[in-house]
């Protein structure tokens, strides 16, 4: 019951881990990705990803710019040009 989440920048693979849910600020509105999400691609507005490690825990914020999200069988992959923190 976990979503595989990868965050990649041109310089390196920032994160590759299993999480509960990620809320992504898409250009056409925020969307949350849980495990088993339908295949989906979206550009991301500059803003913060919210990563929920567990269902009830507090989200971790990762600020990104120039992002792109891809949801597939392998989970969620976020390509970002810049990542803060």
């Amino acid at each position: 019951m976990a979503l595989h989440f990868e965050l990649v920048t041109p310089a390196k693979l920032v994160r590759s881990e299993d999480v509960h849910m990620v809320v992504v600020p898409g250009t056409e509105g925020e969307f949350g990705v849980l495990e088993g999400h339908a295949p989906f691609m979206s550009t991301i507005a500059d803003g913060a990803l919210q990563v929920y490690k567990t269902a009830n825990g507090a989200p971790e914020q990762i600020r990104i710019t120039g992002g792109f999200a891809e949801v597939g069988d392998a989970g969620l992959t976020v390509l970002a040009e810049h990542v803060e923190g």
Partner: protein
Amino acid sequence: MASLKELKGRINSVKSTQKITKAKQMVAAAKLRKAQAAAESARPYAARLAEVMGSLASKITVSENSPKLLAGTGSDQVHLLVVANSDKGLCGAFNSNIVKAARAKARELEAEGKTVLFYLIGRKGRAVIKREHPKQIAHMFDTTDVRDPGFNEAERVADELVAMYEDGKFDVAHLFFSKFRSALLQEPTGMQIIPVPAPKEAATGSDAVTEYEPEEEEILAALLPRYLKTQIFGALLENAASEQGASMTAMDNATRNAGELIDKLTIVYNRTRQAAITTELVEIIAGAEAL
């Protein structure tokens, strides 16, 4: 015949040159490892982006309404050659090989009656191209103030290129850099970057219908400049690794040559010294016999 003192001086000077080349070789080896690691860690992003671009490009057909970066300007009169060089020398034929490849392309295009412009990244190679094509340098991008050209530089280069492209300053852009094969082998390479050549269609992992937000074309339009940046970034990284590889090989050769030279000079030195001693002895003996 050089005097003993002169010979000694030469040997010492070659020795200190050898020390420098040896040090530079070791520095290059260390830097090469770092540059390779950087190129390695840049791969996932480039691979993913190419995959996404491939699957997107296979879904839309290139038409007049497609983004200009993909469809082109409709003409191919003005060609821009982006030549990526290093800022430092001491790396053998690394820079001149890249410049040679670019000049060959320039001549080929000019023979076809096209206009050729240059966009130079890095300090080396400027002089040669300036001499050959004094009025055709569109811009010189300076990387002397940064240690290792990274994504920020690639981003700035890509932004400038896109701006120039949109102003109609050129129709087609080619990128010249050195591909890193191994520490011994670097391959000067040229490839077209604008209009973006349609990436090879990537095998999609699943047959499930993927939803797009916004539409495919809009996503593609947003991704094209990023793809360009990634390609330039990749080229800069390859170049960095190649430079260090070439430098290592060149310095290894230089160190070996210096060693040979020292051996030769030492033999000459010893011979001269012996000759001097023999002459002295002969003089003494001759003097003693005369008594």
